[in-house]
């Protein structure tokens, strides 16, 4: 009894403090100080959320920058099933998947003979990677320029304008947010985006 009483009462007391009081205090302060970030960094267009800056989306149209491959199921970029492919480096399925992705990229851009940047043909860890490397964006620039009727220099300038570079040249990775980049393309092209994603028709 000498042991059981404190074992149980301390467990319950700490459950209240660490399980309820602590997360509620953090929620209160975070909501007061950084509500936009605490609520998921949502991107709002015409009053409706069209995604989050932090959560990648699937892009497959030839005139959009494509995101990295995603291993989520049942479909890519399913935010309720985050995760990677877990394919090992010697698994033939990995080589097969990468070959198929390279073929798809080449088919969409037949004239492009450049080697494919590795992040554009490998699945991310979360399956929700919002970014691609600057190399992966540059690789796609020619295709986008043709599909949208823009000058290559314009597309490349757009990438540069939205690039996250290494801080001090050392920290972080050179990358660009795909959702932001495609929205910037839309703003530039003026022709309305077709398809069901377009708000208000």
């Amino acid at each position, binding site marked *: 009894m000498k042991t059981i009483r404190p074992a149980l009462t301390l467990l319950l007391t700490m459950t209240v403090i660490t399980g309820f009081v602590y997360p509620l205090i953090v929620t209160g302060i975070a909501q007061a100080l950084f509500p936009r970030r605490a609520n998921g960094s949502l991107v709002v267009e015409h009053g409706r959320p*069209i*995604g989050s800056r932090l959560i990648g989306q699937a892009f*497959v149209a030839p005139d959009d920058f494509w995101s990295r491959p995603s291993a989520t199921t049942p479909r890519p970029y399913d935010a309720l099933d985050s995760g990677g492919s877990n*394919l*090992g480096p010697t698994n033939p399925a990995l080589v097969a998947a990468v070959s198929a992705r390279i073929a798809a990229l080449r088919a969409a851009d037949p004239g492009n003979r450049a080697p494919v940047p590795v992040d554009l043909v*490998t699945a991310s860890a979360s399956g929700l990677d919002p970014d691609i490397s600057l190399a992966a964006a540059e690789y796609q620039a020619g295709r986008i320029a043709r599909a949208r009727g823009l000058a290559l220099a314009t597309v490349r300038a757009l990438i540069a304008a939205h690039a996250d570079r290494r801080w001090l040249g050392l920290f972080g990775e050179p990358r660009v947010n795909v959702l932001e980049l495609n929205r910037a393309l839309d703003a530039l092209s003026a022709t309305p985006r077709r398809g069901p994603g377009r708000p208000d028709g």
Partner: protein
Amino acid sequence: MTTPASALLIAFLATVLVLVKPLGGYIAAVMEGADHPLLRIGRPLERAIYRVCGIDPQGPMGWKSYAIALLAFNAAGAVLLYALQRTQARLPLDLQHFANVRPAMAFNTAVSFVTNTNWQSYDGETTMSDLTQMAGLAVQNFLSAATGLVVAIALIRGFARRESSSIGNCWADLTRAILYVLLPLSLALALALAATGVIQNLHSDVTVRTLEGAQAQVLPMGPVASQEAIKELGTNGGGFFNANSAHPYENPTPLSNFLEMVAIALIPAALTYTFGRLVGDTRQGWAVLAAMLILFVGLAVLATSSEQHGNPRLAALGVDAAPSALQPGGNMEGKESRFGIAASALFATVTTGTSCGAVNSMHDSYLPLGGLVPLFNMMLGEVVLGGVGTGLYSILLFAIVGVFIAGLMIGRTPEYLGKKIESFEMKMCSIAILVMPVVVLVGTAVAVSVGAGRAGTANPGAHGFSEILYAFTSAGNNNGSAFAGLAADTRFYDLALGIAMWLGRYWPIVAVLAVAGSLAAKKRVPVTPGTLPTHGPTFVVLLLGAIVLVGALTFVPALALGPIVEHLTLWGTVR
């Protein structure tokens, strides 16, 4: 190592080292009940807890009472967590209407979180009700870390006290560890993480129409930052989401990633200073930390350079994996663009050297040598900083073995910090050190011998063996990371890994407390010219020797069957 990778490693080490002394000194003060401004704020709450729970904070406890109290507290936690999962459908706050968790999985998860392993055989987004998450899993993040911390403090007291029958009061130690160490640090880190974009809300999921709009995307919401903070600080590692710290809502930027890596290493590193302070010679703590960091740097460099090489089979397809100003390059399968190679490989080294097990990249997709690093890191007994408390007490066991071997070589009774190391201590040390390899190797052997074990592997060949070996190594060391392709949500793995986690946690804890009790009762022998100094380079080498010898001798055969054979296959067959 690329320049950015080296810069990151140096910045990480510098940040941790700067924080070791202030935090280590603070923990020493707190656990010995000394005065401190922060303590004055919490004192009324601390006293109220003692009153409610009927605790006498001054009440002395011998090692047996201390061990029984700690085991009772942990057992009660496991039973509560099991009960919560088995009844969650009938309890409040089951907003997404999840069913009760099935028995084997509930057993596995209860053991997993109580033992600070945080192995997750369940799917983060779609299994546990909000009540189970908050009142069960999140609570154990604090309690299991506090359990590790107080065992380390008890062992330190064994060295520091003379002819004492008490190693402290378990209840007071637990209360102080939570109120004064884990809670304030978590609060600060949670807010810092929320500032970088980690979500913290109590909303239900948000449905959005995406830009191309083929399909709606459902964005999960929840109180992530508060859980993320203690997940790293307590070296727990259980993610809110399935992708763990690779998920952008858990770890959105290179800065949040840096904060999380530092948080994982923080308390384990600081405890070496706490140790030095409490035994009255801070050089003793620095020597232990030096041994830890030498191993750490070596393993981090190996992991980073292996992953930076990239996969030769993809290079053969015409993939560009060279690092440049425009891309991280390397082996990007299972890694995030914002972390690249450097921040992924370093995170993997930190999370497996400690007992954290959070991941920001998928270890299963690492190249063979890159994946060997997290595996070997755990096999060393998680002493490369180690978990909260567990890291310090585990490396002190190796220190005892080290001085014992040295004592045999020079023909003197071995002693450490003025305490004679005799047969009882050596027996307990051996038990504590050897239970982990037994659990890991026997568990792996059983799993590869039965169909239910082999059925779980996701990758063919040697890599499949590595998946099983990794699972039992992770469970036996209470790490919780995985070669996640392994389908571990089966009855076989839930039960086998649950047992491995339980043995790997409490067997050593009881043995360590026994050592603590035995040492505390001893006199302190005076230092003589014949005493082996335990704060210099010689001792560091001795300690490293003990760690690597035990780890390597035990596990090299198993490693040869997994990552090493895969490495030879990968590079031997590519031309």
